[in-house]
């Protein structure tokens, strides 16, 4: 089985043996052979031994934690794993200001049609007793503000669009 990945923005191709017999596995990473000893303790919790070195690997929302350090990755396969977005996305064209988490809109700092600069405050939302100012992703003009103070918004919901 072959898995295409993007790790910290870098494309990788990993060939895994078609089936697992025991823990020893011969893998091929970008053409290089790699012998590993793998054991899945719990779903999402993997012990990997490579040349004697043991790695504690835990599947995380944004990627994999290995020995306490996070590596963001994305499986380049539409049919696999949802929600493994890395960073990215260009700055050209309209950009939307999205709610990073569920919350309540406290203040709207701009109006449609207003010119804004990158990092200028657009909307303030509150969650868990903390207020957070959401800033403009780019310099441009506010084409739309889709929320008003008091609104509750879900994570990822578009609050405004800057063009």
């Amino acid at each position: 089985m072959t898995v295409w990945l993007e790790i910290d923005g870098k494309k990788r191709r990993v060939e895994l043996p078609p089936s697992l017999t025991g823990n020893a596995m011969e893998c091929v990473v970008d053409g290089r052979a790699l012998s590993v000893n793998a054991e899945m303790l719990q779903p999402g919790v993997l012990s990997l031994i490579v040349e004697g070195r043991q790695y504690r690997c835990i599947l995380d929302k944004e990627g994999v934690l290995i020995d306490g350090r996070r590596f963001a990755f994305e499986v380049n396969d539409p049919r696999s794993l949802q929600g493994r977005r890395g960073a990215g996305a260009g700055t050209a064209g309209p950009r939307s200001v999205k709610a990073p988490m569920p919350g309540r809109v406290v203040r709207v700092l701009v109006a449609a049609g207003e010119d804004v600069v990158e990092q200028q405050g657009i909307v303030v939302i509150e969650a868990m007793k903390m207020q957070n100012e959401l800033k403009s992703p780019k310099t441009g003009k506010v084409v739309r503000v889709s929320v008003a103070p008091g609104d509750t918004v879900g994570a990822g919901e578009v609050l405004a669009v800057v063009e």
Partner: protein
Amino acid sequence: MRRPIKKVLVANRGEIALRVIRACREMDLQTVAVYSDADRAALHVLHADEAYRLGPAPASESYLRGDLILEIAHGVGADAIHPGYGFLSENADFAEACVSAGVVFIGPPASAMRVLGSKTRARQAADAADMPRVPGSVTGLASIDEALRVASGIGYPVMLKAAAGGGGKGMRAVLSPGDLASAYAAAGSEAERSFGSGELYLEKLIERPRHIEIQLMADEHGGCLYLGERECSVQRRHQKVIEEAPSAVVSESLRRRMGEAAVRLALSAGYVNAGTVEFLVDAEENFYFLEMNTRLQVEHPVTELVTGLDLVHMQLKIAMGEPLELKQDDIRLRGHALECRIYAEDPENQFFPSPGLITRLVQPSGPGIREDCAVYEGWTVPLDYDPMLSKLVAFAETREMAIDRMLRALDEYTISGIKTNIALFLRILMDPDFRAARIDTGYLERLLDNGVAAAEGSTVPEDVVAVAAALLASSVREDIPAAGAALESKWAATGRQEGLRS
């Protein structure tokens, strides 16, 4: 006079509610939990003998509904209420209502709360107990003119603070007379919004102060002990992030002087039960009274670990009218304890809160590790309350070993599904300044200016990361069911699969 307590209603949620419930069980007291609609699946409910719904998720409709809570306490025959911290814990009217309803409020009398709860009145009390304090206005400022007058009197820089405030809300540092007017307006309205009172006072700004507080425990019989200090200088936006006991800079004599001053203040106000007096300490070991917290503190566990005492057990005994069993000389500090407040927030993205479903939880344990935590795998962290997930506490013989032990525990800790500030702690605990105890209340903000990511580079080869990712991705677990969902989701399925008659 002794009053028997058999059943305690815990008017709180999260780890502190569970911690109080555990203490009650250990003292063979019945426990009553209350919960909002967001907390039916919370652990403080699961561990209580009785549980009653308060209302919708917002605190104003649930955990702040003192009337409802008292009604429940009355209905179920609870003879005492433990308020925990936050919510109703410093509400003198509620404390009073409990007493008149014949229910013991596990905390200080309303009178003492009123004196010490208001910053301005507390400052008057502090002066009366001749406790050193930061020069500044004793009473609230009537106007911007008075503010300007007082400020020029004590000299800039100065700090504006909300009289009814806390947690940094309604606070502004002012470096010169020109900035005072705007800061006065901003702080006033922020205070109005946050506390319903725009009253401000003003004091001299101490440069690079440490935040050090004294834990007090007072009984009804005039007994009052200080249980050493806590160093809480590692703060972000005036919120404590790491606390430790003892402080690396407090000598035995400074401890005694601060402790005795704190005791004087408490006794002067007729204080009873657990309380904390906060001080600013400058580089010359001068200490200045800041404020008093008339409740159990979040960070009380570090004091428990170095004193060997259980503060909640002591609170309960005091509430039963018992005198303190210990004398001041019996209080001995041993070793060093460190607490990390693990929050559901994203340090790499402006510390945005990160509520949601916890899909994987791997908690540390073993020697010297204590965790006060009320989350679990499958729990959905609500967006309605404080983002604290857990208090991870490490104890060891020395400060250095406590830090290294905490690093070991944080390495073992995994919380998936939501963002946490665990990586931030690794960064702090490996920082030479923190390890050398070169910290003040501005320390963390300065550290954060250099970015959050931990310094040390990874020792994990790229190919290993690739294989790990590939294996995990291709054997990914089906998402674990959220609490509540568990029942419904399985429901139909099982009905079918097992052909149980419908």
